[in-house]
Every structure is written in C-alpha cells, then in structure tokens.
C-alpha cells in the first residue's frame, strides 16, 4: 500500500441553494479543490451522495458530475453508504490511490435537500433505516435516535436539558466558520424552549435539512511534487476504516452501544498506531445530540454513560480534552447528508494546516473524523495527520 495525502480541499457554504442544482453545487466545490491543489489532471472521480435518487430523481451522478466539470471520459462512480456516503466516497478514493490503481483522485460529496418539503425529505431519509420493520411504523431517522436518547436518560440518569451542551458547543464553534449554515450561538434558555421534533429530541438537538458540496484531491505521498502546484502542506491519511452493524436498532444486542463506531475507530487507532489520547480534535457525527454522546463513548474518549456530563464540564470545547464539532459539526455547519463526510475531512485539513481562523484548535497535529450511516449501522473513521 502507498501512503496517501490530501493536496487540495474545497467547499461551499452550507445552506439553501434555490438558484443552483446539484451539479452546480458539486462544480463549485470541485473547482475550489482543484485550484487549492493546483493539479492539472485527475485520474478518477468518486461522488458521495445520499438522496438525489429520491429528491431529484437523479441517479448516475458519477458520469453526470464528471462531465459537468469538464472531465468527460474519466473514471467516475457514485458511492452509497446512507448518511456516510461522503466518507465512503473518500475511502474509495483513498483505496484507489493506496492500492496503486490511480494517482490523482477527486472525491466530492454533494447533497441538495432544501427544494423539497420537510415531509418529502423525511420520507426519503427513512430509506437509511430498515423500511420493512422500522419505516413502515412511521419511524424516522430522528425518532429512532430519540428512542436511543430516552433509553440513555433512563439507564444513565441523565436529564433532557443536559444534552444541550452538545448543540450549544456546536453553535458557539460555528460562529467562527464562514462555511457554516448557522453562525449564531444559542443559549441554554433557547435550547430549553425549542419545539419538539421527536420527543425527547427538540429542534436544537437535530441537524438541519441542508444543501452543500465539499471536495478533496488525493495523491500518493511520494508524488506530491509531481502533481500538486501549491504551497499548502500535504495532509497525510493515517487511517481509514469502515465497520457495519444491524441497520435496525432493535436488531442490536445493546442499542446504546454503537458497535460499528467502536470497531471502525479502534481499527483506525491500530492503523495509525495511536490511542484516543493522541487525537487533537474529533469531527464526529452529531446528527443529533444523543449520537454525539454515543460516538464519544464508542470511540473510547469517555466511559459509557459519562459523555453528557463530560460535555457539560467543557471536555468537548475547543480548549477541552477532546474538541468536537470544531467548525459547527452537523448541527450548526449543517448536514447535507452525502456531503457531510467530505466536509468533515475538509475541516480537519483546515485545522491541521492551521487555516481554521477563529475555529483553530491550537497545536492540532492529529485529527479524526467519523461519519455514520443510518443510526450508526455504517461507521467510517478517518485519521489525518500533518508533519
């Protein structure tokens, strides 16, 4: 296997784009990434997307996007792993470069959700669940996560209000990120008053319906000088690991333990030769507050049942023991599903380059990203490093 580095990143501000279609959003992120890397050729394009087949009735995104950005003829495919499609696309690009099948790979995650009604988006999004045994009963991604939250409160004696530590941290961090959808801090009082989405989850616990696109360029570590024309330091991919679990939480032995997140994070630690203590920041999958808590526990940062207390004590803040959602996370940067995993990578690269501006985590050398599909049935962990 060859060592792989990221030589370029690009993204658009997450938000609502009524005047642009999916292909335009992808184009804008791709052009920014190509410019950032200064590359003149691309061997392959990997597209991450979750819902275009439902919401835009548009499949075949590999060829569509490659052609639209002027790369007609190049190898291009779309990769699907539900909400983790962005990280899956990144991993497929990584595998192509590491395995020697391609030298320069463009990975793009793109999603457009805002042009449909919330009810239509929620219906399409239930496709990440087990439709025959969850979706048919009216369960939605948020409500399944709400079931986990209620059980967590019951087993560990945690109050609903205490989960507010996660969105309050995410929103505070997003203030400094020009690419974030919500650049506004929220207060404990606002959190306590927010309307219910799926009890006990409220509006501030759940990530928003968003449009977005993010892209990265990969190449072999020993060929950076041949391909990249940039003064940015390359960022190394130290680990890449995927694991799966039962799609339906009712099929899991212990619904409050994200087994796939545990397996993929620990495989990644082994690959990188590190422990959780070596990780300077963690972009986790805070699709809801409870998923942030369960991710911290499964990945070994805190003991089971402790994540909410840990968050309230400041452990997740920019200067805490393990900073999370450092540029807003899914909650405040926004969660354009199939693009989210690539945004996480882009944000880690900004942090490791020292380009994160007001969001900068001091002395960041090793960053970890974890993208979850469905209710954590797919977990994809990447560890990046610099220097």
């Amino acid at each position, binding site marked *: 296997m060859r060592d792989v580095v990221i030589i370029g990143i690009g993204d658009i501000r997450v938000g609502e784009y009524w005047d642009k279609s999916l292909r335009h959003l992808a184009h804008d992120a791709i052009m920014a990434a190509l410019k950032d890397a200064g590359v003149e050729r691309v061997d392959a394009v990997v597209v991450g997307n979750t819902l275009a087949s439902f919401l835009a009735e548009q499949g075949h995104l590999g060829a569509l996007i490659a052609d639209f950005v002027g790369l007609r003829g190049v190898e291009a495919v779309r990769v699907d792993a539900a909400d983790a499609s962005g990280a899956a696309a990144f991993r497929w690009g990584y595998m192509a470069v590491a395995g020697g099948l391609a030298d320069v790979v463009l990975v793009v995650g793109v999603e457009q959700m805002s042009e449909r*009604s*919330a*009810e*239509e988006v*929620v*219906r399409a999004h*239930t496709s990440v669940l087990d439709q*025959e*045994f*969850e*979706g*048919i*009963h*009216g*369960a*939605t991604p*948020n*409500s*399944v996560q*709400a*079931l*986990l939250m*209620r*059980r967590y409160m*019951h087993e560990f004696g945690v109050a609903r209000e205490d989960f507010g530590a996660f969105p309050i941290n995410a929103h505070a961090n997003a203030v400094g990120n020009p690419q974030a959808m919500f650049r506004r801090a929220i207060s404990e009082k606002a959190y306590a008053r927010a*309307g*219910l*989405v*799926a*009890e*006990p*989850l409220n509006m501030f616990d759940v990530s928003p319906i968003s449009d977005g696109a993010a892209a990265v360029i990969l190449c072999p570590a020993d060929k950076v000088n041949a391909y990249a024309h940039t003064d940015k330091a390359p960022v190394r991919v130290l680990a890449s690991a995927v694991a799966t679990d*039962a799609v*339906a*939480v*009712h*099929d899991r032995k212990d*619904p409050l333990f994200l087994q796939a997140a545990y397996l993929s994070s620990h495989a990644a630690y082994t690959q990188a030769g590190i422990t959780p203590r070596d990780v300077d920041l963690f972009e986790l999958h805070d699709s809801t507050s409870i998923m942030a808590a369960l991710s911290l526990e499964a990945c070994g940062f805190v003991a089971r049942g402790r994540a909410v207390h840990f968050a309230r004590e400041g452990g997740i803040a920019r200067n805490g023991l393990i900073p999370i959602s450092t540029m807003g996370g899914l909650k405040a940067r926004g969660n354009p599903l199939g693009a989210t995993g690539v945004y996480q990578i882009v944000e880690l690269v900004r942090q490791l380059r020292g380009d994160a501006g007001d969001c900068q985590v001091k002395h960041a050398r090793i960053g970890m990203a974890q993208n979850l599909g469905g209710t954590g049935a797919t977990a994809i962990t990447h560890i990046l490093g610099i220097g």
Partner: protein
Amino acid sequence: MRVAGHWRLRKQRLTLQGEICPVCGAHIFPPRDVCPECGQPASTPYTFKGRGEVYSFSTVYETPDHFTKYKPYTVALVKLEEGPIITAQLTDVDPDEVEIGMPVEMVTRRLTEEGDEGLILYGYKFRPVMERVGR
C-alpha cells in the same frame, strides 16, 4: 402500488411470525435467513405471543408525508417476552402516560396508506395490557 412487497410480509405484520433457531434455540423477529446468535441457517417458524414491555418510546412531530395525517404518534421499541426488541407504534394510550417498562400487547391496526387510490396497510401496534375483568 407495491402489492407483492407488502403481501409477502403479511405473516409478520398480522401475526408476528418470526423464527426459532433450530440450532441454538434463539427467538428471532423479524425473521432472517441466518441466526444472529449462532450464524446457522434459521428457518423454523415461530408465532410470538405478542406481549412485552416498552423499552423506549418517542412521540413524533416531524413526519414523513405518508404519516403526516397521523401526527403526533408514538413510536416505541418493545421488548417481547421471548427476548427480541421490535419497533412499533403504541396505540390506545395517552402519550403522557407511557413509561419505560410498561406492559403492552399486540393489536392489529391501520399503519398507513399509499395515497387515496393505493393500498391500505395494516400491521401490529402495541397497547397497554388490558386487565381481565370478572370470573
């Protein structure tokens, strides 16, 4: 209209038919081709008694379009007496009176429908266990 896709699940939806693993004896719902406990082929049908307790629950306000007319409704994880946990709605109960551990039993109810012209879909929901009176 997706007729066969719903028809082939009729035994699960209307009678809670699952499986017992012939090798390790695990009770399995929904049915699978491979036992989740021991990895052996699983194919012996077993009809669940339809009794259990609430493991967790959530009243849903943000719904898919084909459930909007039913909102708010309460989705639960129900732990069946035989062991498995299943996802189902609670019915015949005020959401404010639901609690974890509450005993519930299966009933057949309308789940949703495929628009005005399409199928009406029935299946299992759970309600609080009714007290037997008299005798």
